[in-house]
């Protein structure tokens, strides 16, 4: 079977409720919408989203729906998706939306300040996403990812385990305008 995958970062600034008068992330927003629209067109009835669950600290503050879920709902709504969005991957699922990003510790003004390990970690993921290198992604160090304030590393690993062989990979965006590494990537996989 063929599976379609879009990986986008769960950036709260993409939510309409946080929009300012000017868009701080116009290029990212364009790429994300392109990827999500592409995915929704290929699996219009049902999509699976994988990403980090709700942050326990936010749950303690009264926000129990994960950021990944809210971003997915918002982006898919913008893309015109009206199908079912589930959070558990079944064997027959053809469309996967991965909410993930690299380190948030890529500079002194980054949310998590600077951690020099961020660059190698992010580069490893970025190249593996571009190359469809599932083996590297399966072996990602989740603990280091957590230290580096990356998001959705578990989701990337689950994707790498279950997606099938990557026959096409398209990188629509890579950048770290606010000290967090963002990627927008689409995959076509066969198994």
């Amino acid at each position, binding site marked *: 079977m063929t599976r379609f995958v879009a990986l986008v970062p769960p950036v*709260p600034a993409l939510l309409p409720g946080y929009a300012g*008068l*000017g868009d701080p992330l116009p290029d990212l927003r364009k790429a994300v919408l392109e990827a999500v629209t592409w995915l929704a067109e290929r699996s219009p009835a049902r999509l699976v989203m994988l990403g980090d669950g709700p942050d326990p600290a936010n749950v303690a503050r009264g926000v129990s729906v994960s950021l990944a879920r809210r971003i997915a709902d918002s982006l898919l709504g913008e893309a015109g998706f009206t199908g079912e969005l589930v959070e558990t991957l079944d064997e027959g699922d053809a469309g996967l939306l991965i909410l993930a990003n690299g380190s948030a510790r890529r500079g002194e003004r980054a*949310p998590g300040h600077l951690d020099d390990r961020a660059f190698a970690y992010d580069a490893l993921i970025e190249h593996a996403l571009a190359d469809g290198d599932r083996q590297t992604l399966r072996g990602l160090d989740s603990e280091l990812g957590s230290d580096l304030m990356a998001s959705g590393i578990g989701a990337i690993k689950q994707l790498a385990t279950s997606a099938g062989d990557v026959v096409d990979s398209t990188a629509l965006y890579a950048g770290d305008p606010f*000290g967090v590494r963002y990627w927008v990537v689409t995959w076509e996989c066969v198994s």
Partner: protein
Amino acid sequence: MTLKLGRGEFADDATLMMAIVNRTPDSFYDKGATWAEDKAFDRVDQVVDEGAQIVDIGGIKAAPGAEIDATEERRRVVGFVARLRSAYPELVISVDTWRAEVGRAVCAEGADVLNDAWGGFDPALAEVAAEYDAALVCTHTGGVTPRTRPHRVEYADVVADAIVSTVGQAERAVSLGVDPRSVLIDPAHDFGKNTWHSLELTKRLGEMIATGWPVLVSLSNKDFVGETLDLPVGERLTGTLAATAVAALHGARVYRVHEVAQTREVVDMVWSIAGRRRPAHAVRGLA
């Protein structure tokens, strides 16, 4: 409500800066700085650069002084309005006058707003606004004669009086044919009022907003600020901006000011606090 100020139309969430441009040798704040026409023109250039959507041209200072008849008032403002109209086809031009004959002359040259700062003293001014499809600012003065200082003026309830007076003028203007989108009401701080009255109006401005008529405030460097803070003219900006912030929180739409840039910052900030304007951009904690 959408505002239609002559050739300018503004959405119902827009706040507007009305910059004061005096064509007088003796106004209290600038003391004749723009008495020379070229200086006044330079002032317009500056305030437009600073983001003013409206300029308010005045030919007579508000305080008592040498009598300025209609002929002299026209001489001071009509040609200047014509020059501005030609130089700034889009700018909203307001003229601060109580006289219908002056209003007619400036509207014929393209003025968009008649700022009736003396509260309908000349009832024919509203008819001129209707005739030229101009906007009208309806102000509260407590019925005093133009260019008089308040002396022992008292109100049972100054806010109620301001509402009855300005809404009455607004409704009359509409009945005479002024577009309802082209009427503003102004409590007119200091006019026919002591400092206590102006403070009360500022505190309770929400009651004027609640009438539904868009509210203009003219707070800039006025005596109620000076008396409250014991500061002379020239040192009242902070107090003016504090009063401006309160007016903005209540929802005033138009701010008649000397200092455009500072007022714009305060109003934008307060408008955002009130949830009526989004931040310019927001990524803190959201990356």
